[in-house]
């Protein structure tokens, strides 16, 4: 059977179609201009920038600027800050996924006294972003001696229920017959968890990982408070520390190279795992 084109009569052909593309391309250019400018600034010399207007096309200082940023930076080598960010983002994403999988499994698949109470205690945390309780949380972390440490960077940001909520929703949709069959076969609960539930949750875990990795990587306020030692700075908070406090010119080429390096890992994750990313985004807002 011949396929009937489903664009119907609403879709504009010719001139209208052309305007749609023009409108979108203008939008994309507006969105990309700041990134393009940062990239250009990271490939020219300082003197190109401080005598405005700066060029709008890349120069030949790419290697110089990036290797200077990575190996020496301004307060700390950017390579080190990248590693700190990677450890923090992975720690937050994997830590949150792990504890949430376990607690969602307990809440959905067991009946035990106090279950409802725990359920509500966990879900209360949905309400309160870390920004709101910074002073007392800082005191707790300082009390444990966790300032300037990875655990201090990671643990306070794991204390939230979004992921638990998500896995609970997903486990509720898993057919009862699977647990039934496992029970009839005499399988222990943890066996059911490892052999059936976990493999079934693969896509959800991956989608959530993408969202949590970006969330962790892009943290700013918390690392700003608890990493006073430059060698523990994460890259996103470290950029602001690269600006001079006085009237001197900032080292723009190095700062812009660092900005590009700071956005590269999350951009690669989002663009290359677009499908999972969109799924994670929609899931975590449901």
């Amino acid at each position, binding site marked *: 059977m011949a396929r009937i084109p489903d664009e119907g009569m609403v879709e504009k052909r010719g001139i209208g179609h052309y305007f749609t593309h023009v409108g979108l391309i203008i939008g994309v250019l507006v969105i990309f201009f700041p990134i393009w400018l940062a990239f250009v600034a990271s490939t020219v010399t300082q003197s190109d920038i401080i005598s405005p*207007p700066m060029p709008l096309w890349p120069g030949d200082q790419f290697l110089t600027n990036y290797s200077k940023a990575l190996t020496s930076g301004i307060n700390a080598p950017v390579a080190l800050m990248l590693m700190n960010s990677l450890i923090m983002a992975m720690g937050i994403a994997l830590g949150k996924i792990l504890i949430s999988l376990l607690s969602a499994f307990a809440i959905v698949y067991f009946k035990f006294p106090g279950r409802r109470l725990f359920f509500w205690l966990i879900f209360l945390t949905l309400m309160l972003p870390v920004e709101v309780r910074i002073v007392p949380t800082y005191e707790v972390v300082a009390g444990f001696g966790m300032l300037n440490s990875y655990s201090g960077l990671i643990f306070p940001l794991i204390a939230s*229920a979004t992921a638990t909520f998500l896995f609970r929703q997903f486990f509720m949709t898993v057919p009862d017959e699977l647990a039934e069959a496992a029970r009839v076969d005499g399988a222990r609960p943890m066996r059911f968890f490892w052999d059936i539930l976990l493999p079934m949750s693969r896509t959800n875990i991956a989608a959530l990982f993408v969202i949590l990795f970006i969330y962790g990587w892009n943290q700013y306020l918390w690392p700003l408070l608890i990493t006073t030692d430059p060698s523990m700075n994460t890259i996103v908070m470290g950029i602001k520390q690269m600006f001079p406090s006085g009237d001197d010119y900032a080292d723009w080429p190095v700062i812009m190279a660092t900005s590009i390096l700071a956005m590269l890992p999350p*951009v690669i994750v989002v663009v290359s795992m677009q499908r999972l990313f969109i799924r994670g985004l929609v899931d975590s807002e449901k």
Partner: protein
Amino acid sequence: MEKRVTFKGWLLPMCLLMPQIIITAVFFFYPAGQAIYQSLFIPDPFGLSMRWVGLGNFEYLLGDPYYRASFVTTAVFSLLVTVTSMGFALYLAVLADRLIKGSGVYRTLLIWPYAVAPAVAGVLWLFMFNTRVGVVSWYLGLLGYDWNHVLNEAEAMGLVVVASSWGRVSYNFLFFLAGLQAIPKSVIEAAAIDGARFWTRFRTIVFPLLSPTTFFLLVVNIVYAFFETFGVIHTITSGGPQQATTILVYKVFSDGFVSQDLGSSAAQSVILLVIVGALTIVQFKFIERRVHY
């Protein structure tokens, strides 16, 4: 909603819950409790003792012209961020929805800013509008406009609004596009057959059908503007000039960590807590309705 089939025992589920319960108790409930507790006291200047003041901190805050100004600043800021980012995103989504092929390419290009941290976005925009080296401010100077967000309050506000909205366009675009694509084409075609032009169709059919998405985004964007834009403000203006861009979250930080006024900072945290609570309830109410719909 409950599972029919469950496993027996209570020791195992308790062990499974423990990691989350411990982390939540130590890093969430204890600090949140501390915030409420500290909000009722004023520490003495040497930090040796605390003086009970009841609701004194709150009374003081609500009478403090700076705090009230910060409330107004936050309201103006969130409103502008929400309208700017949603407006631009809707414009792009409506255009992308008109394409039969190729909307995927634009989508891939437009989701980039989502991955850029607010603090990094702040640095990018600061660079463009820097008073000494910024490209945009230089060209504005050529046109005879003297841009200086370091001194001019309205320009400072404009810059933090644009920088905060920029990263948010991606998110809003994705949800608007999904919302538009869920509208049955037959409804729109029926209107087109009746002779309704694009703008009429949009106003009378598309926009009303899109309202669940719009309302959802409205709440989510306000929450974003309230709590996640700290990085933008800290990198671009540090709350200045003259506190013109000191939003509530920034004030908790500057009063608590810069001026070490713990009682006031804790009271501000509690007020924010109430605001988040209210926004969350609105969001949940709405989501419930969407599920029933």
